[in-house]
């Protein structure tokens, strides 16, 4: 790994971490509703610097954020880790398979979908184990995820355009 890559990962992780922290401070109408702002950084890392950088940044962000908020290895850490890893993996796969099929918005939507799907699956397997509760809540979560994923994708797309222009 080049020195430049290390700097890049450190910088992107710092951005992702601060967005993650900022998002936790934002008041939302429903307690578990999150905007997924840190996914913007994952998206930018993936599209500009490749899958390895994106996954490293996601792992650093999830682990450090949980250590800072005191939930390391707790239930919310497991949900956060599962969601982050699966969404990054899904976005990386979609990006690798069809490089010019999906733009940033499409990748962000895929990321949001897989993030939510992984969290719902984890929540069902580990915590709730009541299929009707998951069935009721999952379409709502996926709908909200589509809207926030769209916003993140638009912001990420603008960011990528501006970064690659320089």
């Amino acid at each position, binding site marked *: 790994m080049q020195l430049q890559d290390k700097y890049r990962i450190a910088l992107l992780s710092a951005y992702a971490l601060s967005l993650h922290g900022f998002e936790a401070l934002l008041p939302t109408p429903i*307690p*578990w509703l999150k905007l997924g702002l840190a996914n913007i950084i994952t998206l930018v890392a993936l599209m500009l610097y490749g899958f390895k950088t994106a996954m490293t940044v996601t792992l650093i962000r999830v682990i450090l954020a949980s250590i800072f908020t005191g*939930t390391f290895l707790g*239930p*919310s850490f497991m*949900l*956060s880790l599962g969601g982050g890893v699966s969404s990054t993996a899904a976005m990386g796969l979609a990006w690798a398979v*069809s490089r*010019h*099929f*999906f*733009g940033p*918005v*499409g990748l962000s*939507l*895929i990321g949001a*979908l897989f993030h939510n799907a992984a*969290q719902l699956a984890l*929540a069902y397997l580990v*915590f*709730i184990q*009541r299929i*009707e*509760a998951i*069935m*009721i*809540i*999952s*379409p*709502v979560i*996926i*709908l909200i*995820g*589509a809207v926030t994923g*769209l916003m993140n*994708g*638009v912001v990420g*797309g*603008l960011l990528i*355009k501006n970064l690659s222009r320089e």
Partner: protein
Amino acid sequence: MKTIIRSTTCADRLLFLLLVLASCAGIFISREAVSQSSDVLIEVNGKAAYTFPLTTDRLVTVDGPCGPTVVEIRERKVHVREASCPNRLCLKEGWISKGVIVCLPNRIVVTVGGGSAGSPRGVDAVTG
């Protein structure tokens, strides 16, 4: 706004439409599927007297301290059709598909949804 829309690919827009449509359909489908399993529970004097599925239409006469109360189930909704209590607040509740109708003088409680009498009622889950 226009440049943002133009910057998305066809696949992006298709994916977004698909997600929104699928989740909207999912909301309705899951609501249907769950409301099918909900029951109507009629309690008299704090004791469970009858349990009926919400899906079958029927007319039930329940006897309380003030006299008979007629509860009707029709088209997945419940109401109190006739009551012999003095103030008839239970009649004014109208048709409900979820929740509770209470007749205090006659000591009758009609509960729709919320599972059977023994299941816990409250928050399902909160995640961080």
